[in-house]
Structure formats: structure tokens, C-alpha cells
């Protein structure tokens, strides 16, 4: 939308063309959907109290409006897909050069291993900030084999990484359905009703115990919360990378969850020391002293062992279920 148009078109017509504008005005306490005046006439007509409610001067408000419209237009314009993230080596905390070649592609699971403080968060931050040799590691990130656009760094709407960790909780006072709706609306997601149902069904297929659309999100169990978070990321989040930080094996089908994210063409990074999760990855990045020391490709022998590990895991899960049912474990 041209600047002149933005300032001379009646507000009701503006809102008809860009319904997102109603949210913008509403957050300043202004109801404009049926207002036939233009923006300057509106600003001139405000009472002293309403002007005070803006919390900014009319000039600042006009700039905010322009920037808001620009933000919505960028969002509408393109969903430029990330089909490759290349990480170019930098150095570790001692200044030692890293030696690795790494390209992350959609549908890939890569695990990240290393003790606390080894530099896992830094690696992630490098990706999130699309480092260009300007972070302590000196690493560079290329998107689709090219120097990335700065929007990945500065725009709220384009975040490369969505995160999920065991420490995360829901804090909003909403039901499951309201929550998914609020999230979808904040991203201006089309065909929202259908998406809400998809998220709900997926979340239930991942959770050990099912839950209803009317459940308060704060009342969900740990496993149910994690299931809803993953389903929501898979369907509503636009970030091409998902970082999963050590999710516990309780109340959620972890393998199914990962498969789901892979199907949705996400690049999945898992920070974990759980052998099953680690071996589900195609590669393992070994991090120490702030640098990537090694990239291990999961071998055929490891894949073979994964089957045995999963068997052991099932045995433990069954024992867990028996404890839950009030049985004894005198006989395994």
C-alpha cells in the first residue's frame, strides 16, 4: 500500500482491505471498522483522554501505522522456504579453529551433545542470529547457500528457530481451543478453524492421555503440554528449525513427535543425552569448549542397536505402566 493511500483512504475501506489493521487500532483503544474518516481526521477528532491513551504523539502514531502495514505486507508477500542452512566453521573458546562441514536440510534430525556450558546454546544462538562472523565463535550461517537477508535477524515474524524444552509451561488463562486460535490469529493464519482441529487431533495422537478442546491449557499434564506444543509448532509455527531441548519420556510419544516434525519439513535439532533420541538423529554434533569438535554420522551398527534400545525402553515403559496401575514388580 502506498503511503499517500494509507493516509487518505477512509479507515473503513482500509480495514476492509487489510483486516489486520483492526487489531492495530484496537490495541490503542480505537474502534474504526465503520469510521469513514481518514487517519488524520481520526487523530484530529480524538478527545484529550483518547489522545492520552495512544501513549505516543500523533506523528509517532503515523509512523507506527506505516511500519505495522509494512510488517503485515511482508508477511503476506512470501513464505520463502529455507531449504538449506550451512554452518561455516569458526573457533572455540580458546581460539582454536573448528573443522567441520555442516549443512542442515529440512526433514533432517541432528542431535547436539556435550556437557552443560560447552556451547550448545551459543551454537543455537548463532543460527538464530544468522551469525556473520560477528559473534564470539566467528561462525557464519548461510541460508540457501547465500548470505541471508537481515529480516531473519530483525523481524519478529521471521524467526529461524522455534524452541521446545522440558522447562516450558503454558501460562495463559485460556482453553486449548482458545489458545490455538489466539496463536493462529497472531500469525494471520488462513483457514484457522481447520488448523485448530488439526493441532488438537495431532496433539491427542501424541499425548499418552487424551484431552479436550475445552481443557484449560494450564491444567494439562507435562506430557499433554509437550504434545500440544509440538503439534502447534508442527502446524502453526513458520520457523524452519525446531530445537528440542531434552524432552522426558513421559506422557508423550517422542518418536512419533519427531517423525511428525520431519514430515512437516522442519530441521530438527535435539539437545539430548538420551541414547534413543541421540541415535534417532542422522548426525550428532559433539560440542566442547565452545566449539563443534566432531560430527558423528549415525552408523549402521548404531541403527541396529537402536532397535535393541527401543526394546529396552518399551520394557521400562511397561513397568512404569504397571506401577501406575498399582501393581507390584516382584516379577518382571
Amino acid at each position, binding site marked *: 500500500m502506498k503511503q499517500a493511500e494509507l493516509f487518505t483512504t477512509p479507515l473503513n475501506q482500509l480495514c476492509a482491505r487489510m483486516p489486520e489493521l483492526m487489531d492495530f487500532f484496537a490495541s490503542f483503544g480505537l474502534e474504526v471498522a465503520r469510521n469513514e474518516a481518514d487517519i488524520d481526521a481520526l487523530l484530529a477528532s480524538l478527545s484529550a483522554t483518547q489522545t492520552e491513551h495512544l501513549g505516543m504523539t500523533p506523528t509517532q502514531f503515523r509512523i507506527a501505522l506505516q511500519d505495522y502495514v509494512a510488517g503485515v505486507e511482508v508477511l503476506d508477500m512470501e513464505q520463502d522456504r529455507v531449504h538449506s542452512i550451512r554452518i561455516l566453521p569458526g573457533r572455540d573458546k580458546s581460539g582454536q579453529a573448528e573443522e567441520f562441514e555442516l549443512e542442515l536440510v529440512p526433514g533432517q534430525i541432528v542431535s547436539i551433545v556435550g556437557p552443560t556450558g560447552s556451547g550448545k*546454546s551459543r551454537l543455537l*544462538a548463532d543460527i538464530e542470529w544468522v551469525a556473520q562472523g560477528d559473534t*564470539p565463535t566467528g561462525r557464519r550461517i548461510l541460508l540457501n547457500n547465500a548470505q541471508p537477508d537481515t529480516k531473519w535477524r530483525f523481524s*519478529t515474524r521471521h*524467526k529461524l528457530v522455534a*524452541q*521446545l524444552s522440558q522447562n516450558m509451561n503454558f*501460562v495463559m488463562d485460556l482453553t486449548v481451543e482458545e489458545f490455538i486460535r*489466539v496463536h493462529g490469529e497472531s500469525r494471520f493464519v488462513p483457514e484457522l478453524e481447520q488448523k485448530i482441529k488439526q493441532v488438537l487431533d495431532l496433539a491427542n495422537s501424541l499425548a499418552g492421555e487424551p484431552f479436550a478442546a475445552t481443557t484449560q491449557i494450564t491444567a494439562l499434564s507435562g506430557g499433554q503440554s509437550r504434545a500440544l506444543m509440538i503439534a*502447534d509448532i508442527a502446524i502453526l509455527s513458520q520457523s524452519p528449525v525446531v530445537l528440542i531441548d531434552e524432552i522426558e519420556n513421559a506422557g508423550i510419544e517422542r518418536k512419533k513427535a519427531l517423525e511428525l516434525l520431519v514430515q512437516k519439513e522442519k530441521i530438527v535439532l535435539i539437545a539430548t543425552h538420551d541414547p534413543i533420541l541421540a541415535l534417532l538423529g542422522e548426525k550428532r554434533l559433539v560440542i566442547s569448549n565452545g566449539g563443534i569438535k566432531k560430527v558423528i554420522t549415525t552408523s549402521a551398527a548404531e541403527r541396529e542397536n537402536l532397535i535393541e534400545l527401543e526394546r529396552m525402553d518399551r520394557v521400562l515403559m511397561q513397568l512404569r505402566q504397571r506401577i501406575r496401575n498399582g501393581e507390584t514388580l516382584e516379577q518382571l
Partner: protein
Amino acid sequence: MKFITVSGPPSSGKTAVILQVIKALQQRNIDVGVVKFDCLATDDDVLYARHDIPVRKGLAGPLCPDHYFVSNVEECLEWGHSQQLDMLISESAGLCNRCSPHIEGITSVCVIDNLSGIGTPKKIGPMLKTADVVVITKGDIVSQAEREVFASRVAQVNPSALTMHVNGITGQGAYELSTVFFAAPETANLQGFSLRYSMPAALCSYCLGEKRIGKEYQMGNVRKIQLGGVEGAKK
């Protein structure tokens, strides 16, 4: 010297964020000092001093902390110069959400946290709406969706700001924020500068110490609440 104003609601994580940012700046041998503004008491100056950060504190006492801040900000800059700092950060608590500490031409940061609720961004006035940089904290303990919703509500009331997520505990995002701080312009003094928006207005009898309740004691800048339908409401 670079000068940066940091503000935000109480307990949003301002001090933790500033400490993490300074840590990142110190690694590049940049000397940073802090002036901490608060109302009645603060221990944050001890916290800064413990990290060998030159610090001064100002307690507003019975005054609006914002008014106190703007009346003393020039002296703070002089102090910063006398300490030969490369960068001075002012930290002020936004207590009534109508605070407006940001100055035209000075990099202005508002720190706000994910736990404060999605309705919060629109309840905060100029402190958030006119900031150049909005730092969102406590993202590590809420879901990705809630982070996205919260950030979009921030973008609704301040679409022009650069919004960043910083973890005050682990420091994730602090290095990135430090590059934004470092890009702030050099400021010798604040002569000829002005606030981005007027501060909360006051000056009524209660400002001057009146304690008694009742119309006859209310003088000066007094505004009455509109409740409507008072007569007809009784059943």
C-alpha cells in the same frame, strides 16, 4: 560516550539483562557504567558493584521516579564522563505503566517479560510504545506459541521497534543485544534534547503531602472518574 536508557515494569528482568549485556561488552574491553533509578530501595547497585561495574543509584522517594530521572539525567552523564566510561546505561523501573523515560536521539530499550500476560503490551504506554528496542525475557519457561503471541502483541503497539528475546539467566541473546547497544550514537551531553513523550502529569494537593480524603481537599490537577448511571443503578 554512548548513552542508553533501559526501562521496564518491575521484575521484568532489566538488571539481569543489563548484567549479561555488560558481560558481553566487557569481553570487548568496553567500559560500561550504570545509573540505577528506583523508588524506595534497591540492592541492584550492590549487584553491579559485585561485577566490578561502576554504579550510582538514585532513589526518587516520594517523587515520580520518571520526573526524578529526567531532572538528574544530565548529572548522570557528567558522572559517566568523569569515570571515562565508553558507555553509560540508565536503568529505571516503570512503576505505573504511564512512564515515559525515553529521549529523542538516545537509544531506548524497554524490557518486558513473557509472564506478564498477553494483555500487558497494550496496557503499557510510551515506555514500550516509543522504545527503539524491546527486549522480551523469560522466554525459556513459556511455550513457543506464547512467545510468538506475546511478540506479536508487542509488534502491534510498537511496530517500529527491534524486538529481541534475551534470557537473563543463561545470557542467550545478550551478545546480540550488546551489538545493538554498541551501535548507539556518541552523546556528549543532553543539551537541546527532549523527551519522546510527556511524562505522567501531576501536581495536585496529594502531590504536596495532603492525606485527607474528600472533595474540599482536592486541588490542582484533579480528574474525576466517569462511572455513569449512579442514580438509576439502585434496585
